[in-house]
Each structure stands twice: as structure tokens, then as C-alpha cells.
């Protein structure tokens, strides 16, 4: 580990973390080769043909390397801390301006067009946000637990996120959620991540199962947390679990009860009338009016004050917080339906529906994912060989050289190739985290974590999308996908960190 030693005054070149740079170069070259593979059959030409995407990507790669060199050798790493506020303000201004001045691409206004060159400000807002976060959070006396600090931190993240949502680029905005991991490293309570996770889970449950199921799960988790915290796990097993199971059976019990009231002949008549009681000539039984959800809410309404009283007697703030979270969760469940139907846009709703299996739609939205999975799945262990992919060639897979570039990797290089690419990313992210942790300056550490979070979110969402783990969210695979903005953005993001890292090794 000579290269990572902290000796003062190391040479320019030696102080750079070359392993990171090599990892970066590997990914960029893999991307370039696969962009060529994804387009070569429809436009057979040299990989350097500047009319084709591979040729253009070559240009982007060369310019990206120039940017990297400038960041490493021409710019002082000390400038970032001081410039982070103006850069952030400038980028936010760009983000807002693009809504009005940008061109519309696939339903979103997030691109500036200067003649043939297109540029997406959202790509550099990751850098500016990371820099400002690093600057703000590395100040003396910053404590994430303090409400004022936390709120400002949250605002720094949420402001660009919100503007990007306004550009109809919800996918890019989702990446900012990743900063939560950095916040966790910097001392944010793990409970917060847990609560966010629970919120997402109950949102999904509400949509796929029912609000009843979602609330039952929330109540079960809340009761488990309270019992675990106060050391009453056995009480939870004996008292709460049976109650939860009983509640889970309520819909079935109510249904059976309803059927016994109506009777077999009534059921037939009802089936004939397609469930219309009035048409079937049957009085609607009272069990139909009492929804299982009401019973569950009733039980919760009875038990919650009791638990709250216990918490008060034991002076347990945790109990009260848990109950509050549970109530917030229930409110969320009831608003989930509203959010899903009113707040989300059509295409986002469809993508979520397909992902959650609510709608089978192999030719519509699901078509992309299905074809992408076919391409990757057909690769097998070793793949079909470079330039021999058939699925990507015939154009079954959309956006082959940008968002779905991983299909070409999966088809032509197989499981070995795709696992290798994922391992490269894991190595890259791990290396960034490691270097960040070794850094003596909070600024470098925080910025490093921001970089790691961004790359991780892109990696997981993009590859998860191509193999059907995530909804179709159009964000690029860092360093690999075709596109100048994205490559430049990620190159700058990464190399600012490498420069910061090198700076420390050089002077300390």
C-alpha cells in the first residue's frame, strides 16, 4: 500500500490514486466498446466514424479526459470550498432557466441546446450540491442532530431535487435520495432511514395489496419496535402476535359471515346480478357495511392510548415517537392513493404499476423491460461474444446505447461480463469510501461520500431497471452510457474527489 501512505511531499503522479483512475478508464472503455456494439449493425462503420454514436462518444471521452487533466493538474483543489456557494447558486439558476429556455426531449425540459451540442444541467448539479454539502457540513460546530443544521442540509439537497422534478425528470431527482447514506455516515439517526424505508414499503403495500394490509404491517412493526426497545419481546410474542394474526383474518371472517347471512341461494342471485344487491333483491347485510379497515382502526384506536399511557408512566419518549410515526404512517397510507392517482404523472404511474406487477403490459411500458431482460438473459454464462448479440442488434431493446447500454454488456459478455462490470463499480465505490474515510479533512470525506452515493444510486437504479428490479427510470449508467453531459458530469464529479484526495497526500 505504498501509494496510499501519507508521506509528505510525494510526487505529482505518485500521489494520485491510480487504481481509481484505472477503474474509471476501464469503465469508459467498456462503455465505448459496447456503444459501438449496440449500433454497429444498423450503421456498419468504423468505431471512429464521427457520424455514429461510437465516434461521438470517442470525442466525449477525449474531452472528458481533458477535463480530468485540468481538474487534476491545472486547478487548485483549494478553490472548491470557497467557490461552492457561487457554483451552487449558478447551477440552481441554470436548472431553473432550462425549464424556460431548454428544449423538450421525451416530455421533459432539462436540456440546453447550443447548436448540435446538448447539455443537461442536472448532470452538474450533482457536483454543485455535493460541493455545497461538503462545505456546509464540514464547518466547525456542525451537528446534524441540531434542527437548524439538519434543515439547511435538507434544503441544500431538496432545492435542486425539486427543480429537477419540475423539469419532469423525476428519475434524476431520485438520485438525490442517495445522499441519505452520506447523511447517515455523518451521524444522521439510523431510525430516519428506517422510517423512510417503512414509508416506501407502506406506499407499495397500499398500492399493491390494500390500505388494510399496509396499516396492519405498520402497526405490527411499531408494536415490535416498542416491545423490543423496552425489553418486552416475550410479551410481543404472546400478546401482540395473536392479535395481529386475528386482525389479519378479519377480512376472511367478515366475508364468511356475509356469505352465511346471504345464504347459498342469495349468493347465486348475487352472482347473476353481478354483485348488485338491489338488482338481486337482497338486503345488503350489515357485515358489508363494516369494513375490516374500520375494525382495525377501531382496535388501534383502543390500544394506542393505552400504550401511550404506559409510555408516559415509564417516561419513554421512544414509545411516543413510535406511536407518532405509526399515526404518520397511517396518514401516509391514506394519502398514498391520492398521491398515486393525483400527484404522479401518467408515465410514472404506469411504470410503477408495471414494476409492481399491477398490470401485465408486455407491449407497452413493460415491453422495454421485457426485451431488455430477454437480451440480458440470453447472454448466458459467457455471452454471445463481442458484436454477436442478436437482441440488441435487431433493435428490440430501446435506447440501447444510453439508458439500456447494460443490455449489450449482458448479452455479448454474459454473466461473467456483467458481474465483472458490477464488481468494477463496487470496487470504485468502495475505494472512494475508503479514501474518504482516510481523509483528514471533513470536506474531502463528505464530498467523497456524496460521489459514492451518486454513483451507487445511478448504478443500482440503471442496472436494476434493465433486469426488472426497478421501474423504468431513464438515468444513465455512469461512465458507460452514451452521452457527453453525463460523461463529463461524472468525470468531473469523480476527478474533483481524486484531486482532493491527492491534495491531502501531497501536503500532509
Amino acid at each position, binding site marked *: 500500500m505504498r501509494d496510499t501512505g501519507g508521506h509528505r511531499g510525494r510526487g505529482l503522479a505518485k500521489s494520485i490514486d491510480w487504481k481509481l483512475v484505472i477503474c474509471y478508464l476501464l469503465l469508459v472503455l467498456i462503455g465505448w466498446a459496447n456503444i459501438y456494439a449496440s449500433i454497429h*449493425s444498423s450503421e456498419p462503420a468504423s468505431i471512429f466514424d464521427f457520424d455514429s454514436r461510437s465516434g461521438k462518444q470517442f470525442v466525449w471521452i477525449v474531452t472528458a479526459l481533458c477535463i480530468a487533466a485540468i481538474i487534476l493538474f491545472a486547478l487548485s483543489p483549494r478553490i472548491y470550498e470557497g467557490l461552492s456557494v457561487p457554483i451552487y447558486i449558478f447551477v440552481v439558476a441554470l436548472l431553473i432557466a432550462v425549464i424556460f429556455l431548454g428544449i423538450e426531449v421525451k416530455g421533459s425540459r432539462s436540456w440546453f441546446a447550443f447548436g448540435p451540442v446538448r447539455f443537461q444541467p442536472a448532470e452538474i448539479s450533482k457536483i454543485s450540491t455535493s460541493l455545497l454539502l461538503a462545505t456546509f457540513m464540514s464547518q466547525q460546530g456542525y451537528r446534524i442532530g441540531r434542527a437548524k443544521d439538519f434543515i439547511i442540509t435538507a434544503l441544500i439537497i431538496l432545492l435542486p431535487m425539486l427543480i429537477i422534478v419540475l423539469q419532469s425528470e423525476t428519475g434524476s431527482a431520485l438520485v438525490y435520495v442517495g445522499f441519505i*447514506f452520506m447523511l*447517515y*455516515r455523518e451521524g444522521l439517526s439510523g431510525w430516519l432511514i428506517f422510517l423512510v424505508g417503512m414509508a416506501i414499503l407502506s406506499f407499495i403495500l397500499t398500492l399493491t395489496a390494500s390500505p388494510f394490509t399496509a396499516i396492519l404491517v405498520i402497526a405490527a412493526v411499531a408494536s415490535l419496535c416498542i416491545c423490543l426497545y423496552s425489553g418486552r419481546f416475550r410479551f410481543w410474542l404472546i400478546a401482540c402476535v395473536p392479535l395481529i394474526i386475528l386482525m389479519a383474518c378479519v377480512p376472511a371472517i367478515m366475508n364468511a359471515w356475509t356469505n352465511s347471512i346471504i345464504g347459498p341461494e342469495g349468493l347465486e342471485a348475487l352472482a347473476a346480478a353481478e354483485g348488485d344487491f338491489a338488482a338481486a333483491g337482497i338486503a345488503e347485510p350489515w357485515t358489508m357495511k363494516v369494513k375490516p379497515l374500520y375494525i382495525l382502526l377501531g382496535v388501534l384506536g383502543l390500544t394506542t392510548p393505552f400504550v401511550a399511557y404506559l409510555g408516559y408512566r415509564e417516561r419513554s419518549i421512544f414509545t411516543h415517537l413510535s406511536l407518532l410515526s405509526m399515526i404518520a404512517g397511517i396518514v401516509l397510507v391514506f394519502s398514498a392513493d391520492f398521491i398515486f392517482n393525483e400527484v404522479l404523472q401518467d408515465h410514472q404511474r404506469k411504470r410503477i404499476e408495471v414494476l409492481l406487477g399491477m398490470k401485465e403490459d408486455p407491449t407497452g411500458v413493460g415491453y422495454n423491460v*421485457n*426485451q431488455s*431482460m*430477454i*437480451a*440480458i*438473459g*440470453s*447472454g*448466458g*454464462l459467457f455471452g*454471445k461474444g463481442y*458484436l*454477436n*448479440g*442478436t*437482441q440488441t*442488434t*435487431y433493435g*428490440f431493446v430501446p435506447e440501447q446505447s444510453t439508458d439500456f447500454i447494460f443490455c449489450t454488456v*449482458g448479452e455479448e459478455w*454474459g*454473466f461473467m461480463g*456483467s*458481474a465483472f462490470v*458490477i*464488481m468494477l*463499480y*463496487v470496487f470504485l*465505490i*468502495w475505494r472512494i*469510501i475508503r479514501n474518504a*474515510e482516510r481523509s483528514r479533512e471533513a470536506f474531502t470525506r463528505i464530498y467523497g461520500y456524496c460521489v459514492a452515493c451518486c454513483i*451507487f444510486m445511478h448504478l*443500482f437504479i440503471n*442496472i*436494476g431497471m434493465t*433486469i*426488472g*428490479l426497478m421501474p423504468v427510470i431513464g438515468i444513465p449508467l455512469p461512465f458507460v452510457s452514451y452521452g457527453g453531459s453525463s460523461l463529463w458530469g461524472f468525470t468531473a464529479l469523480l476527478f474533483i474527489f481524486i484531486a482532493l484526495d491527492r491534495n491531502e497526500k501531497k501536503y500532509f
Partner: protein
Amino acid sequence: MKLNRENKLIIGLCTAAAILIAKLFSIQILDDKYKMDAENNSMVYSTIYPTRGIIHDRNGNILVGNKVAYDLLVTPKEVEDFDTLAFCEVLDVTPEFVREKMQEFYRNRRRIGYQSVIMIKQLPPETYMKFAEVAYKFPGFRGQARSIREYPFNAGGNLLGYVSEVDAAFLAKHPDEYKSGDYAGKTGIEAAREEELRGEKGYNIWLRNSRNKIESRYRDGEFDKEAVPGNDITTTIDAELQHYGQMLMANKVGSLVAIEPSTGEILTMVSSPGIDVDMLADIGQHYKEISTNPYKPMFNRAVQASYPPGSVFKLVNGLIGLEEGVLTPNTMYPCSMGYHFGKSKLGCHAHKSPINFEESIMMSCNAYYCYILRDLLENPKYKEIDEALDKWREYVMSFGFGQKLGSDFPSELGGFIPDSKYYNRYYRKGGWKATTVISLSIGQGEIGCTPLHLANLCATIANRGFYYTPHIIKDSEHVTIDPKYKEKHYTMVDTTHFPKVVGGMYRAVNSGYGSGGTASVAAVEGLDICGKTGTAQNPHGSDHSVFICFAPRDNPKIAVAAYVENGGFGATWAAPIASLLTEMYLTGEISKDRKNLEARILQGDLMDRVRVKK
């Protein structure tokens, strides 16, 4: 290792990566579904066309068979520079044609890609063989065998119908069964029995590589599907008789229909002028010529033309009269050159008077039938003439007139029999009486029927009172006909009345010249032909010549209707034609003393008499 937050995050990172890799492992290695789907994506199906079913006649002769022709396919991407002149010479095409085609392919090169497209359709084998010898000089070109129709007998062009490539309108109607490039029967039997004849297409599956080139058979052809040939069909047609019928009707406009009375099977159905089978085989070339011919050869007169039946219809009126009891076979009526009512008269020709029922058929007396119709319509049994006429119509319809007979032949038309509503609309109610519609008695006026109706009438009389729906397809190995063709249809006239009519028809033919019988020309010794002439007046020129006959008198084997447009008297053209056909069917030859008659008919040319819009 400490479980600090850094390490927790790294564990999280590894878990996330593990989830991605596990999912990749599952879809790339564990699950075969995606590989199969991918194969589906890269499979190319090449169609194997089935041979169409063969159409046999009733004696096992092949009416429609198949022969091989070759489509010349070209894969434009594989074509290199070639000697255009040599190419043109061997394939017998012009350089302009080749240039035009190649330019067309070049324009559509994006759509075509690496696919093959048809350049020349249906090359005869001889031409293709010449090409095959030098095919190595022309990379990118190859032949594809395709079976096309062949017609060993020049018989039944209109009947058989033609097969041609499906067009856009046809595809729109049958989106699932047919694809562009398929052939389908468009008219006649080919259309009516398309489902049996067409067979099932098969396919070979090939795999494309990433450059869209065909690389290999998919799993060595394990999943290929053989084409299933179409089912053969046996028609009720007698090929030789049909051919003879066409010769008899040559250069005349009209129809000749022969039915086997004991089964309702159509032995011969000629519509003249018709489509020659040579034209059928290559309908695309001749379509314009056929469709612009003023005599409309595509129009199948045997089932589509609506003619006045003429005196032949007297048989029906006579039978109805007997059934209704307005006369007996012995009823005598006078005729003085016609039937007189008020100041008008419906004329008749010179014959002895008075006459009885049989003689009225034999001599085809008009007046006799005016009496019958008048008695029918003024029958006191019915309150008013409306009711009487409708009853009469009901009788007539029971012979199959005025409606589609329901034969298995496509595009049959129903003809027309007027009812009281029709006349009430025409004359207002009460504004007409029996004498107004008196021409119905002799098959004139508002009656329309097809030659098939007349043949069916003849078969009904031959059967003494019932008929089987005429049909053209027989039961065979793969094809079972609708049971409705095996049901007897009785008329509303009691079967006991028919022998009198048969007697009259026998006497019309066999009484000898000078006896007053109208159809002596049709007599053949020993065949006991029974017939009835008709001479149908029409607004389109000379009278139509009509004749129906069956033979022999007992256990009749054939019932014939001949209808010759503008042929004049029934005895002039229709009777010889029908009797010659009958003679040929029953004896297989024409007797010596009738050779002259045959020669006159074969040479007869009435085309000039028929008025057409040219």
C-alpha cells in the same frame, strides 16, 4: 472489523451488488425463458406453401390439378454486378424490366434489408431450369417452387373459378388465416371450398446472426412444420359431358344445366360464353380481357341470370291447376289462335282444337293455360284475387322458384315470382284482375328464374314430385357434404298429378313430325326423352329458346335445361342442344341420323343476335 457506520454502508453496498448479481444469475443462467424468447426474436420463418387440393369430376377425372412453377427470388444485399443481357436472355425478360426492378429494390433497401423478395412470379419449369444451369453467375438470385393450378380438361371454367394472390381487401377480411403472398380461391368452387382446398402452410425456422444473415436451421428443423396439402374434392360434374356441353353452347349466349334427378347432383353447368381454363391458370394476364368482354364471361348465367321461363312454366301452372281442382286431365278447352278476353287476345299457334291436358303440353297451347290461370285466380275458394295469387305463388315457390335453391355454388341468385303486394303497388289494390296478369300462365310477364331453377323443375317432374337441392360437391374421402343435400323436397302438388305431365312431355317429343308435338327434334330412338319447349319473349331482341327434358321416362338418369338467348323457338336451338347432351350422357355417342343435327348445333353462331353494349 468494527461495525461502524462506514462498514455498515460498505456491507449495504455489497448487499445491493449481490442483489443485482443474484438477479443476473437468475435470468442469465437459471431461467431458460429468456433464451427461448431471444431465439424467438432471432428466428426467421420461411413459409412452405401447401399444394392445393385436387378437384375431381364424378368419374375420378382430374378437373383441376397442380403443376410446379417457380418464383424467382432475389436478395438485393447479396446481388453483385452481373451480366444483365445474359440474365434477360435466359429468363426472357427485357433489360428495362430488370433495371426497373433493381431500382425499386434499391429504393426500398431499408425495408428489405437482408430479406428476399420476389422478382418474377410463376416461371414455367423449362425457363427456370435454363436459369438454374447458369444461376452461379447470378449470386443473390434463387428460385422458389410454388404449385399453381393446371386444368387437364377444358371443362367448367366458370364453375371451377380461379385462384389468385390475395389482395389487401381480402387480407382485411381474413386477417388471421392469410398473409400477403398467399393464394386463395376467388370464384366458383375454388372460392366455395377454399377451406378444404387450401391446406395448411408449414414453415422452416432459421436463425439470424447479429448481422441479420440467416445462419442455420433452428435446432436442426426439430420445430419446423410440414405443410399439409389441401383436401381433394370430388365434384358431381361429369368432365366429358361438361366439355361436350361447352362445345354445344359455343358461340351461343345462354346456359345448359344437367342434373341427376335421383340425387340432385349437377352433372353439367355451362354458362356461355364462359372463361376458358387456359385463362384461369393465368388469370392475372387475362383479367382485363375477361372483364372488358361485352358478353361478360365472368357472369355465371346458369345461376345468376334471371330469365322469363316461357312455355316451360306451363307445366307448373298445369300441376297447380290439377292440385287445386280447377281442371282434370280430361278437361277440354278450345283454342282459336289464342285466348280472347274482351277486345284483347293472347295469341297461340295453329293446332287442333279443342284439346285435353296432355295435348296442351304436347302442343304447348297458350289458350289452355290462360283458362287454367284464370280459373285459379278467380277460384271462388278464395275471397279475392290477392289471396288466390298468393296461394298460386306459394305453389310456385314450392318448386324452388323465386328463391335461392340453396345450392353449394356461390353467388346463386333467386329470381322473382310476383305476389299480390307487387301488383297492388303497381296497379293499386283492386286495379288488376286475372286477365291483367294472364301472361303469367305461359311463363311470361313478371316471372324471373335462373336456368338452374328450370333444370330443378325438370328434375322435380322426372322424380314425379320432389327434388333434391342441386349441388356440385359429392361426398369424398375428406369432404362430407351438408345433409340438407340429401333431403327430398316435395312440392305442394300431390305426386299423383305428375304422371299426366310426364305423359304430355313424352308426347311433345315422341309423337313424330306432323302430330303437333313441339319437340320432335329432340326425339332419340330408345331413350324415351320427355321434354317441353319454351319460347320466351323478351325486351332484348329475338325470343329466347328454352327447352327442358329428362330421360328415360322411367327412372330418369338426367334432367336438362337449355336456355339460348335470342335463339328463337325452343325447338330451334335449345331442344337440339338439350337432347344431344342427354343422348351423349346416356349412350356415350350421337347416333348416326342425328350427326347432321349435331353438326348444325356445333357450328351455329348466334353471337350477332345478342345485343350487347360494346
